[in-house]
């Protein structure tokens, strides 16, 4: 009997030990992020003000701002989302609902899984030779947005498929039983029910894209740019202009990189400020993802 108790006590000790190790492992991540945030806040908070957000870069640290880079980031994200979301969601739906199981589909699936693991700089090199030189799109917002769209496309596809898989087979069968076509099933049932998962995947993918620097440097995103792309809405007909797509651009991470590598140490404060803005935008995107997931999940009952 005492032997038995002894063994139980030993097992409980092991359990406790693993608990501690687990907590420590979790803390490493959280503390690192906390320290990073605190460091950025201490360095950068003094620089965050209206002028910082509405000024162009300058050779004087105190005059320099992030206007052209945050506008660039925003425009790039619009192009990326507008390309990657319809393509990725459509591809995900096709692969999950329409495609027959054969070797072609298998090949496509293996390739998508592999693409998700390709380093981002490779996408940059691909975009440089294909988009910049072959298609002659130049170092434009369009090129940058498409490059990042390629980068996150596999993530969007995988997220869409995962979301579709969580929908019980019974829903599809019930809809078919009522005489729905495949498209009607997708359009009225699968798309709305998978919205939560898909949107979460899309937003996580976008928040990855927003911090990417390497592929954009490869295609030649510029570092000093003191003007904004032409506005998309015009005073006279046809009122909408897509000229901004061909405009050169800079983005927040590249602006940070530039400031950190300057001789004058005052610019490091600016880089911290830009970093804070970037982290804030990323956290905001993640918060939106969580909110959407929560709302959609709450409403779905089957």
């Amino acid at each position, binding site marked *: 009997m005492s032997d038995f108790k002894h063994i139980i006590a030993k097992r409980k000790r092991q359990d406790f030990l693993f608990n501690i190790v687990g907590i420590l492992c979790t803390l490493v991540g959280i503390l690192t992020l906390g320290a990073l945030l605190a460091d950025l806040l201490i360095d950068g908070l003094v620089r965050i003000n209206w002028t910082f957000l509405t000024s*162009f*870069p*300058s*050779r004087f640290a105190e005059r320099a701002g992030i206007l052209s880079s945050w506008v660039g980031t925003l425009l790039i994200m619009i192009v990326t*989302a*507008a*390309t990657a*979301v*319809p393509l990725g*969601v459509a591809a995900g739906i096709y692969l999950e609902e329409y495609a027959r199981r054969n070797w072609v589909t298998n090949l496509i699936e293996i390739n998508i899984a592999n693409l998700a693991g390709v380093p981002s700089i490779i996408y940059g090199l691909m975009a440089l030779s294909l988009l910049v030189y072959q298609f002659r*799109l130049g170092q*434009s917002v*369009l090129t940058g947005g498409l490059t990042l769209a390629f980068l996150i496309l596999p993530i969007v596809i995988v997220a869409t498929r995962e979301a579709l898989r969580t929908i019980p087979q019974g829903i599809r069968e019930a809809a078919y039983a009522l005489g729905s076509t495949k498209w009607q099933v997708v*359009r*009225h049932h699968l*798309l*709305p*029910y998978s*919205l939560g998962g898909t949107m979460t995947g899309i937003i996580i993918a976008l928040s990855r894209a927003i911090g990417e620097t390497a592929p954009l440097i490869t295609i*030649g995103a*510029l*570092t*000093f*740019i*003191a*003007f904004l792309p032409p506005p998309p809405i015009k005073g006279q007909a046809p009122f*909408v*202009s*897509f*000229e901004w*797509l*061909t*405009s*050169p651009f800079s983005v927040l991470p590249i602006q940070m990189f*530039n400031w*950190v*590598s*300057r*001789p*004058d*140490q005052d610019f490091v404060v600016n880089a911290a400020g830009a970093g804070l803005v970037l982290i804030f935008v990323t956290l905001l995107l993640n918060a939106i993802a969580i909110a959407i997931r929560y709302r*959609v999940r709450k*409403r*779905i*009952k*089957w």
Partner: protein
Amino acid sequence: MLPGWNASRLTASLAIVCLTLLSFACGGDGGTGSGNETTVIKVDGSSTVFPITEAVAEEFQRSGKVKVTVGISGTGGGFKKFVRGEIDVADASRPILAEEMSQAKANGIEFIELPVAFDALTVVVNNQNDWLMSITVADLKKIWEPGAQGKITHWNHVRPEWPNEKIALFGAGADSGTFDYFTEAIVGKAKSSRGDYTASEDDNVLVQGVEGNKYALGYVPYAYYAPHSKRMKALAIEWEKAKVPGAVLPSPENVLAGTYNPLSRPLFIYVSRKSMDKPAVKEFVEFYLKNVKTLAAEVKYVPLSETAYQMATQRLASMQTGSGFGGVPEVGLPVEEILKRTPKT
């Protein structure tokens, strides 16, 4: 179950997204069509010249409506774009090489070479380094030449009286003009260097490296040394071929006087002859030469002499194309001397 409006809203947003996608093609065409109305002047190249060009571009855009973009691809990367005709102006921290000149010729690109300011490559050591105040070019060569790799690993391998400690070397990355110039000036052949050192295109990395190691030695552009002069020590350079013997410290005065040799170097911009036909580019380059003296000093570079700027302005006005070096790098040349030569194409 989900209410129906959600699904229809999703379709609507999908439709909008697809419409946007469709209009990309039209957007692209419209852009190139109307892109000629507003000129964008494209500058790219050396990270060492970047602060100067950035300052000029900032001031230039304050006065007019012309747009200027300045990139950092390194001197070599900038020339690659320049000889393909992708950019209007190349920033360079070394003269154009013969290979690059022949590529330019093959693509029908003619260029005007204009020196804009000085930089002094500064050899730096840790503040606690108590055995060095100056160093000879011969000793630097002993440390940096390719043959030193794996052999000269300790300070006393260079000179027996120096400490028996491992040298930590910090230098420029291979795509930078700084690397090309330093190797040319010290080893005697551009791009010929030992490989076992910490190389970085980001000079702040080198500054931190030298600051953190008592037995470190590195080289950085003067603009990176000047703001950190308290954190590390610059060495005076003793050149055997100098006209006046003795060690010379890097300083704006010594650079301008032409005594800090062979590590003081002129920085250049290369302007495409074809781009000069655009009034905006012409205006920009003229503005550059007129204001670079004040602006270079503002960003901690050493301006050229008044005569040199006048000669450069004349060269620009007469559209003299070609390089004063003819593709062969030389060190320790006064800028006036370079400008006096008839440039070779």
